[in-house]
C-alpha cells in the first residue's frame, strides 16, 4: 500500500479506516453501499443538499455513466454521487484541511463497483473542471481560489490514491477469491475422482469377473486378481504381456476384427466368446467384453476388458455335444457326426472335390454275439474299432461307428478310386490277426462297400445309398472283401428290383402268358411234345423272357403261385390237344423251379390240376434242373417218385452244366435228359464244330441210353446240328430250326396227322 501524500499525514488514521472498510468482503461492502443508496432516507438527503452539489453530482453522474457496472439506476447513481460531492465540498472548506475525505471518496466509488479505470479518469477531470465552479467557490477573494485550487488538487490526488488502492485491493481480493474457487473445485474434483477410483479399485480388486486394462498398442497395464487367477499368471507377469499374445488358434476371425475396430476408435465396445490358453496350457472359455476409454477430447486412450469364465458352461456344452456326436462304446464319432461332416462337404467343398467312403460291416458278427454273449460282442467291437481307427487315422480319415457292427471311413479330398480301394484293403488287412477276448481267439473279417466320386455328381444321400448297396454286393459276392460301386451293376439291380416289385400284381393282372416250343423227333421229324415257356407282357418293358424274371420270382417266392398258374395253363392246353389227337403220344413239358420242387404242396397241386383239367398224367413232363434234382433231400426225392409213379414224366433240364453224380442218376425216377444248348452250339457248323462238345454230347447220349433215358437237345438251330445229333443218336431236338415258342393255338396245326418237321434242308 502506498503512503498517503505529505499533506495528509495527519489524516493517516482516517485513511486506514477507509481502507479497512474497503478490504472487507468486496461483495458485502458493495451490498452495504447499494443498501445504503436504496433506502428511503436518500430522498431526505437529496432534499437537504445544496443546489451546487446537486448540479455537480449530475455532471459527475453523466461523466461516469456506463464506465462501470453498478447495481443502480441513473437516479440512484446521482444520489450516491451527491453524498460524495457533499463530502468533498465539506473537505474543501474544512479547517484544518485534511485530504483523507478525497481518499475515502475514491474507495467509496470502487466499493460501489465503479471499478472501470475510465471512472477514475473522468472523475478526476470532472472534479478539476467543474467542482469549484458548480459549488460557486471560484468567485471568493483573491488568493482564496488559489488556496481552494490547491486543496482540490490534493483532494484529487488523494481521491485517485483511494480509488487505486481500493481497486487494487478489490482486484487482488477477487483474484484470490476466484483462485480459491478454482482450488476448491479442483480439490472437489480430485476427491470425487479419488472416491470413484476407490470405488473402482474396490470393484476392480474384488470383482469375480476378470478385468484387464490395456493401452491401444495392446500392452496390458493392469489386471485384477480374478483375471490373474483365471489365466493362471501372476499379475506382474500378465502386465508384461500384450493382448495379442492371447490369440487362440480357434478364435473366431471377427474377434480380432472387432478388436482392430475398437483400437481404431470405430466402435466403443464389443462382446464375444473367446478362448484363452491358461499358463498351464488348459483352455479357458470367456465371455469377453472390451470397452474403449476415450480422453476428454474423445481420442481413444485405453481399453478395459472384462472376462467372465464360462469354461464350465462350455465344457458341459462340449461334453453334451461330444456325447451327442460320439458312440459311448467305442468312443468313435457316431452317425450324427459322420452325417454332419458329410453334409458339410456337400454344402461347402468346391464342386470338383472328390470323396470316398468305405462302408464296413463285420462278417458273421451276429454269430459271435449269439454264441459268446453281448459282453464278448461288445469287447470285440471295441477292439475292432481300435484297429480300424489306427488304420483310418494313418491316412487322416474320419472313422465313425454307424451302429451295430457297421463302421464307415470317410476319405475327404479323395485322389481317386485307387486311393479309396487302398484304404479298404488296409482296413481288411488290419482285421487279419484274430482277436483274443476272454480266452477266445476270434477270427474276424469284414465286407466293405467302396464308393468314390466327385461330389457335384452326387448328394450325401446318394453316396450313402451307393455305399449300402455296394456293401451288400461285397457280402453277396462272398464276404471278407470289398466291392467297388459299379453304376451299371447298380442299374441292373435297380431294374431287377423294379421288376420283382411288380411281379405279384402282374400275376393278378394277368400279365403272364404261356408259349409252347415243339420237341421234334430226329428219326422222323414228328412232334413229340412241347415245352411250356412263360412270358411276361410287362406294361413298360414289353415281352420279357423267363431268364429276366424267373430268378426274381424264385427270390421273392412268387415262383410257387406263378409256377402253379403255368402248370394249370399248360395242362389245360394239353388237355385240348389230348382231345384233338387222343391216340398220339404227345406231352407238354413244364419247368419246375427249385423252390417249387421243394414245395410240400407240389404233389397235391399237380394231382389237383391233372384232375381238374382231365389231362392224362403221361402227357405231362416236369423239367427240373440238375441241381434241383441232385441236391434233393430224401423227402423231395420221395415226391419225385410219387409223381413218377403216377405216370408223370420227369426230365432233367440243362443237363451237363451241373456237377451231376452220374452214378446217382440211375436211382432217380427220371425219364429224360435235356442237353444244355451250350453243348449243342459246338455242333453248329460242318467246318469248325468243337470235337470235344461232340464227344461230350455223344457220351451223354450213350450214358442216357444206358440208363434207359431218352435225350432231347436244346438250342438246335441248324441242319448241321440236327444231322449230327441224329447221327449221335439223340432222340429229339428243340430249337429255332424247328420252331420258336408260339401261342397254344399255333401248336394245333402241328398236330395235324402226317405233319412232320424237316430234318434236312429241303432243296427244291
Amino acid at each position: 500500500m502506498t503512503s498517503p501524500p505529505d499533506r495528509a499525514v495527519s489524516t493517516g488514521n482516517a485513511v486506514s479506516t477507509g481502507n479497512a472498510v474497503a478490504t472487507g468482503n468486496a461483495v458485502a461492502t458493495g451490498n452495504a453501499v447499494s443498501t445504503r443508496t436504496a433506502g428511503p432516507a436518500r430522498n431526505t438527503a437529496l432534499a437537504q443538499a445544496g443546489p451546487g452539489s446537486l448540479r455537480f453530482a449530475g455532471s459527475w453522474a453523466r461523466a461516469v455513466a456506463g464506465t462501470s457496472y453498478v447495481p443502480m439506476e441513473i437516479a440512484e447513481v446521482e444520489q450516491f454521487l451527491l453524498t460524495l460531492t457533499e463530502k468533498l465540498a465539506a473537505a474543501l472548506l474544512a479547517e484544518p484541511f485534511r485530504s483523507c475525505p478525497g481518499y475515502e471518496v475514491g474507495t467509496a466509488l470502487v466499493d460501489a463497483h465503479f471499478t472501470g479505470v475510465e471512472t477514475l479518469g473522468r472523475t478526476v477531470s470532472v472534479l478539476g473542471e467543474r467542482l469549484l465552479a458548480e459549488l460557486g467557490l471560484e468567485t471568493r477573494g483573491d488568493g482564496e481560489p488559489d488556496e481552494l485550487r490547491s486543496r482540490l488538487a490534493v483532494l484529487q490526488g488523494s481521491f485517485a490514491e483511494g480509488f487505486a488502492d481500493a481497486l487494487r485491493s478489490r482486484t487482488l481480493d477477487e483474484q484470490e477469491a476466484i483462485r480459491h474457487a478454482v482450488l476448491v473445485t479442483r480439490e472437489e474434483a480430485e476427491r470425487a475422482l479419488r472416491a470413484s477410483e476407490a470405488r473402482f479399485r474396490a470393484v476392480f480388486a474384488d470383482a469375480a469377473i476378470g478385468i484387464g486394462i490395456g493401452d491401444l498398442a495392446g500392452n496390458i497395464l493392469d489386471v485384477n486378481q480374478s483375471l490373474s487367477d483365471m489365466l493362471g499368471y501372476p499379475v506382474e507377469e500378465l502386465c508384461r504381456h500384450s493382448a495379442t499374445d492371447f490369440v487362440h488358434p480357434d478364435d473366431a476371425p471377427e474377434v480380432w476384427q472387432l478388436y482392430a475396430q475398437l483400437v481404431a476408435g470405430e466402435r466403443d465396445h464389443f462382446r464375444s466368446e473367446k478362448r484363452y490358453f491358461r499358463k498351464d496350457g488348459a483352455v479357458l472359455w470367456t465371455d469377453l467384453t472390451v470397452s474403449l476409454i476415450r480422453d476428454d477430447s474423445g481420442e481413444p486412450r485405453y481399453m478395459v476388458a472384462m472376462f467372465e469364465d464360462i469354461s464350465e458352461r462350455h465344457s458341459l456344452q462340449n461334453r453334451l455335444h461330444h456325447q451327442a456326436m460320439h458312440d459311448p462304446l467305442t468312443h468313435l464319432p457316431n452317425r450324427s457326426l459322420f452325417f454332419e461332416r458329410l453334409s458339410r462337404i456337400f454344402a461347402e467343398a468346391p464342386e470338383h472335390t472328390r470323396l470316398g467312403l468305405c462302408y464296413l460291416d463285420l462278417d458273421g458278427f451276429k454269430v459271435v454275439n449269439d454264441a459268446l454273449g453281448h459282453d464278448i460282442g461288445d469287447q470285440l467291437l471295441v477292439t475292432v474299432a481300435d484297429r480300424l481307427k489306427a488304420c483310418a487315422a494313418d491316412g487322416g480319415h474320419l472313422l465313425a461307428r454307424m451302429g451295430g457292427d457297421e463302421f464307415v471311413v470317410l476319405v475327404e479330398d479323395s485322389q481317386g478310386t485307387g486311393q479309396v480301394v487302398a484304404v479298404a484293403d488296409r482296413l481288411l488287412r488290419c482285421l487279419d490277426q484274430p482277436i483274443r477276448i476272454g480266452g477266445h481267439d476270434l477270427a474276424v473279417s469284414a465286407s466293405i462297400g467302396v464308393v468314390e466320386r466327385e461330389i457335384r455328381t452326387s448328394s450325401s444321400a446318394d453316396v450313402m445309398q451307393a455305399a449300402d448297396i455296394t456293401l451288400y454286393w461285397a457280402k453277396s459276392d462272398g464276404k471278407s472283401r470289398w466291392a467297388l460301386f459299379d453304376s451299371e451293376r447298380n442299374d441292373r439291380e435297380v431294374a431287377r428290383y423294379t421288376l420283382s416289385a411288380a411281379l405279384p400284381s402282374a400275376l393278378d393282372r394277368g400279365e403272364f402268358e404261356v408259349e409252347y416250343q415243339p420237341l421234334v423227333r430226329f428219326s422222323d421229324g414228328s412232334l413229340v411234345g412241347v415245352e411250356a415257356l412263360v412270358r411276361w407282357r410287362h406294361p413298360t418293358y414289353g415281352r420279357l423272357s423267363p431268364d429276366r424274371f424267373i430268378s426274381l420270382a424264385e427270390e421273392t417266392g412268387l415262383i410257387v403261385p406263378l409256377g402253379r398258374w403255368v402248370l394249370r395253363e399248360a395242362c389245360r392246353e394239353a388237355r385240348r390237344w389230348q382231345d384233338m389227337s387222343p391216340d398220339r403220344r404227345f406231352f407238354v413239358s413244364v419247368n419246375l423251379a427249385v423252390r417249387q420242387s421243394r414245395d410240400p404242396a407240389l404233389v397235391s397241386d399237380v394231382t389237383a390240376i391233372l384232375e381238374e383239367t382231365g389231362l392224362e398224367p403221361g402227357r405231362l413232363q416236369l423239367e427240373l434242373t440238375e441241381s434241383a434234382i441232385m441236391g434233393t433231400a430224401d423227402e423231395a426225392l420221395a415226391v419225385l417218385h410219387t409223381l413218377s409213379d403216377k405216370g408223370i414224366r420227369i426230365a432233367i433240364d440243362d443237363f451237363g452244366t451241373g456237377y451231376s453224380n452220374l452214378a446217382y442218376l440211375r436211382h432217380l425216377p427220371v425219364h429224360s435228359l435235356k442237353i444244355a444248348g451250350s453243348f449243342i452250339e459246338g455242333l453248329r457248323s460242318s467246318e469248325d464244330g468243337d470235337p470235344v462238345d461232340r464227344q461230350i454230347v455223344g457220351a451223354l447220349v450213350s450214358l442216357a441210353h444206358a440208363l434207359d433215358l431218352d435225350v432231347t437237345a436244346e438250342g438246335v438251330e441248324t441242319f448241321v446240328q440236327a444231322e449230327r445229333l441224329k447221327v449221335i443218336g439223340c432222340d429229339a431236338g428243340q430249337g429255332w430250326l424247328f420252331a420258336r415258342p408260339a401261342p397254344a393255338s399255333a401248336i394245333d396245326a402241328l398236330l395235324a396227322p402226317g405233319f412232320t418237321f424237316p430234318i434236312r434242308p429241303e432243296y427244291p
Partner: protein
Amino acid sequence: MHWLERPDWAPGEIDLERPSVARVYDYYLGGSHNFAVDRQLAQRAIRLMPDLPLIMQANRAFLRRAVRFLLAAGVRQFLDIGSGIPTVGNVHEIVHASDPDAPVVYVDSDPVAVAHSRAILEGNRSATVVQCDLRDPRALFGDPALRAALDLSQPVGVLMIAVLHFVPDSDDPAGVVGRLYDEIAPGSYLALTHATADGDQANARAVGELYAQSPSPLVLRSRAEVSALFKGFSPIDPGIVFLPVWRPESERDSHAHEAERFSGYAGVGLRT
C-alpha cells in the same frame, strides 16, 4: 489410476486453458474474477463490438428490474439458472433487501462459478447453490438441495438471464423450458434475456463467430425464436423487447432511441 473414465457424478475438470463464459461475463462487468484466457476472449469480443460492456450492464440492470418486479408481484422464492459468478447486484442481494427470508437458489454448470458462489454465500441460510446443467431438467428439479429450498407448489421467480443463448437447438432449449413450465406452480414467472443479431447485425454475428470457437458457442436468436421459448407463458408488458426498454426506471435508463444497439432481448412471462 490414470486411465479411468470420470464418473458422471464427479465435478467436471477445471480447465484454465479455456475461457469460461461466467468469468468472461465478470470481466465485461468490470470484475476481476477472471484469468488471462477469459480476458483475452473478452477483449477480442470488445474490439469487435465496443458496446459489449454496456450491453452487459444493461443485461445485469434488467436482472435487477425483473427481480424487483417479481418481488412487487409477490413472488417470494427465486431460482436463478445460469447464475454465473456473483459480482455486485446479485439476486439474493436484491431479494433479501426486501425479504431476508425469501429463498434464492442459484444454479450453474460451471464448477468454478459454483464454488465461488458457495464461498460468497457461506452462512447465508436463504441462499442455496446447485451445480447442474440446465439441459438436464430432470436432474435439476430432482436436486435435493433445490427441493429443500423451494416449495414448488408455490409460485417461483425463475431467471434464465443470458444463459439460453448457450444452449444450441440440438439440445432443445424450448423443451428444457417446457419441462420447467411443467415443474413450476401457476403464478410463477420466467424472466429471461437472450442474445440476438436482430439489432446490431454485423457486430453481433462477429461476436457469435468468435464464441463459436470457444467452449461455449453463442446462439443468436431472433425475436420470434425467443418468443417461442416462452411457449405457454403469458407475456408481461411490454413483452419481448430490447434489454433497456423493459420497464426502465427512468426515461434516461431506457436508451429508447438506440435500444437495438443492445443486441439482447428481455422478457418476463407468467405461468398461468
